[in-house]
């Protein structure tokens, strides 16, 4: 186990180096001149030169890459070009809002999709099953934007059940007042694809020999599905949840934009619109780290869920 952990951590280094290199080259090669972005339209040549000197842009490329690496390791990205707020502070203050919205979404989505998927798998091949499949196909073809626009208009603006948008400083108020509508809409939208996906996981398992054996022993279909199939289907379900975990940190950025939630997703979008390079670069690198760590934890979790899995 320890050897496995060490080797996996060791393997992360080249990938991480690649991510850093990609981000560095992308912004160096395709991005505009940072000095001109920072200086603004009215900056004189002398001012721009001074900024270049200050940022180390006149150094050779490999020295600049060194500066970039140092920033990552020391967690010191300096300040946002647009707001002059420290990037680390940006992370710390925007993350709670994102987690407040994303955690309920992920939990509700998973907990609701599993029974739905079992239900659909139970009546597989029937008219209900096919009707649900057609419905989810149509539901999936409508843009996420439409659901949010219409949902916000109907539930908040017309019916007045929720505030249209807003956020407060208290976590409890946020959860009780401001988060319900975004969470509800996001869960409603993601239920269709998740149910479809989990249904295929269940159907994959239903074809196996152990299911036939269980049926042959005289177990009811209910027991077969809930006891035998569900446990085995939990492995791909767990994988799927783990894959979507890093997304929690990016947040459902559309949800955050629509409901004015001061989270990370909205911040990235603002940064993209303002060409605020340090913020985007920091996000890209750290989210990549988080993704890799989550993947490793998932692989270890497999071992706990399924004793047959051998880590090597």
């Amino acid at each position, binding site marked *: 186990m320890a050897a496995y952990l060490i080797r996996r951590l060791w393997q992360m280094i080249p990938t991480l180096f690649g991510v850093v290199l990609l981000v560095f080259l*992308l912004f160096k090669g395709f991005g505009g001149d940072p000095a001109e972005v920072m200086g603004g339209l009215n900056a004189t040549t002398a001012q721009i030169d001074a900024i270049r000197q200050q940022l180390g842009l006149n150094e050779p490329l490999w020295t600049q890459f060194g500066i970039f690496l140092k920033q990552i390791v020391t967690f010191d990205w300096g300040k946002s070009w647009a707001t002059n707020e420290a990037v680390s502070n940006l992370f710390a203050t925007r993350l709670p809002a994102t987690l407040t919205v994303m955690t309920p979404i992920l939990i509700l989505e998973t907990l609701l999709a599993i029974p739905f998927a079992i239900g659909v798998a139970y009546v597989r091949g029937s008219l209900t099953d096919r009707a649900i499949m057609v419905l989810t196909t149509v539901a999936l073809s*409508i*843009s996420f934007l*439409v659901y949010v626009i*219409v949902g916000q208009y109907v539930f908040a603006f017309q019916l007045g059940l929720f505030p249209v948008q807003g956020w407060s400083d208290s976590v409890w108020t946020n959860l009780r007042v401001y988060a319900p509508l975004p969470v509800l809409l996001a869960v409603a939208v993601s239920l269709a694809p998740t149910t479809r996906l989990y249904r295929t996981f269940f159907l994959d398992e239903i074809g196996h020999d152990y299911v036939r054996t269980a049926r042959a022993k005289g177990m009811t279909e209910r027991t077969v599905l809930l006891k035998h199939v569900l446990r085995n289907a939990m492995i791909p379900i767990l994988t799927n949840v783990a894959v979507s975990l*890093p997304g929690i940190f990016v947040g459902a950025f559309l949800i955050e934009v629509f409901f004015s939630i001061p989270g990370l997703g909205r911040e*990235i*979008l603002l940064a993209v619109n303002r060409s605020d390079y340090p913020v985007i670069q920091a996000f890209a690198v750290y989210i990549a780290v988080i993704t890799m760590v989550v993947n490793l934890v998932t692989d270890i979790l497999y071992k706990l869920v399924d004793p047959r899995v051998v880590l090597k």
Partner: protein
Amino acid sequence: MSAVLVSPQLTPSAARARGVWAAAATRFRTDKVGMASLIVVVFFLLVVLAAALGLVAKDWQVERGVPDAPPTFVGPAAKTAAVAIAAPSGPNVDISAVDPLAPKYAEWAEAAKKYQTTEAARATTLPFGGDRLGRDVLAKAIKGAEVSILVGVAAAAVATLIGTLLGAVAGFFGGKIGDFLEWVYNVFTAMPSILLIFAFAAVFPRGVGSVVMILGLAGWTGIYRLVRAEFIKHAVRDYVRSAEAIGASTASRMFRHILPNVSHVVLVQLSIHVVGFIKSEVILSYLGLGVGVDQVSWGTMLSEAQSELILGHWWQLAAATILMAVFVTAFSLMTDALRDALDPKLRGLE
């Protein structure tokens, strides 16, 4: 004797096994849902072609109706009584003595005569309503379909090209090159794709070409993975080794021998990605990271529709949503049918 001689006298073409494409076409034709969705998709593509050639929706920017003109089947908007400030009743005061602009008025009136403005009669209703400026929503939605669908198809083509090329090289050669490409793949999949798209969007200028490149560069990894697996499987098969034995070059073996045998995988992936990229383009354009301001796509229509909806003008939202839903549903169903026809092993999954 003669009976034995008769049976092998089949024409060579009939004796030959049917090709994978012919067999797939037969299977596809028996799929009613697939055929129906194919017809819808072809119809949409014809409309896109007509719009691209300027046959329909060419004048989508002409403001032919009153602002926010309702659809014809709803009827014209009720006249709201204009609340005007009561006109002053006293006599006009002559201020020309102190007005500093007075000497210029005659000159300006002369200059204004050189330009003529045509005030076309504006319709009170349009077939499917008008937008904020009175432009025909239906023409806009068709023009938007052209941009959204073209971007989706082009981005899928770029992603497929990158994924197939890299996947073929990685799968066929393996070794150092394969390891290097695996590393590139790991780097690109190390962050959520939406973050990758944003990172590319931050450095690329706005415009249709950029959206295609952004989506293509961020979305090739899935295709790479599948094509690489297929090439690994095929590279050691007998037919490829035979081709090598008779002196076929490396490129010929990769792209003339193996590629046709895995092209069904590529085609299905291309088709799956078109739908995903159309959805992504709509979201990018909505956020203002997509097509330019002088163009229209389903995404820009939705972003305009958001503020219109609050005023009760639902038609632009409905037009963009319905067109997109019909096309994407038809395309998804067609993709499913295509996959079933080309890869019968997968039938019934999902």
